[in-house]
């Protein structure tokens, strides 16, 4: 009995696959780091929305959060961890493979 072919979409990382998080990860992938305000202004997300996605990514070990203070103002810098970068690279590979295999 032959095993059914594995659909790349079945194995895709759903943490990365979610559109808002994908936008966030893709942006952070190309930057060394960014603060909360910059990510909000680039992605168009609200504070609450971004905070929620950040928490999920941080819990998964994909995101590193550095909290400092500039005077009295809190400043939160975010950057992808190596694990986060690898997860994004793997996701890109899977999606490229998927679209290469999909016929018109």
């Amino acid at each position: 009995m032959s095993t059914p072919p594995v659909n790349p979409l079945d194995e895709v990382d759903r943490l990365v696959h979610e559109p808002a998080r994908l936008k966030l990860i893709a942006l952070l992938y190309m930057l060394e780091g960014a603060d909360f305000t910059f990510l909000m202004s680039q992605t168009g997300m609200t504070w609450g929305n971004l905070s929620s996605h950040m928490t999920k990514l941080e819990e998964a070990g994909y995101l590193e959060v550095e909290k400092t203070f500039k005077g009295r103002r809190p400043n939160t810098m975010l950057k992808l961890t190596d694990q986060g970068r690898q997860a994004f690279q793997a996701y890109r590979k899977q999606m490229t493979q998927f679209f290469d295999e999909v016929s018109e």
Partner: protein
Amino acid sequence: MSEKINLKELQRKAWRSTFQDGLWDIFMGLLLLNIAIFTLADEYLANDDLQIILFIGGEVVVMLFLWTGKRFVTVPRIGKAKFGQFGKVRRSKVKLLSFASVLIGLIVFLIFEGLSEDGQIAGLSRVYIVAIGWVLNAMLMFGLAGYLLDFNRLYLIGAMYALAFPLDILIRELLQTDRWAFYTYAFPASIILAVGIIVFIRFLKKYPVIQEGV
């Protein structure tokens, strides 16, 4: 998930957004306006030292404007990002360019000082040599900076800077007076300022102050 994510374009868009607050435009317009004010000081103030102090004071005020504008108005609205090697390479090239521009300006100045009032090089009087040096320096410096930083408005700013000094010479020769010197620098400065102010206002509308927790 058929939408292609062009990572390079994402990075460029993020980079370009850091120049879309209009402050750099206003800064460069004010620098040129400071030169215009210096021509007035040259006309109305007899004391050379006072003219220099006024000019340097103006430069300091303009730089303070840029710093405070970034610190208190625009960066709190758009945030900060670290661009890594992408940004470092561009900024290093622009620093090198600025250094080269200053060097060229110095060379042209030394040529000017080295020639007598009636002196010529290749049939060109010293004023025309300075004018050519000014135009080439401005166009090259701003053009290359605009290309390296992906900041397109620098091409317009470069053109306005390049226009100022030759316009001054032309008006002096046509009208046989230097009373219009202020306007020959203030006119291109005001164009740069107008564009900068428009960009700044659009920036303020597009990026309201972020309320944490909202």
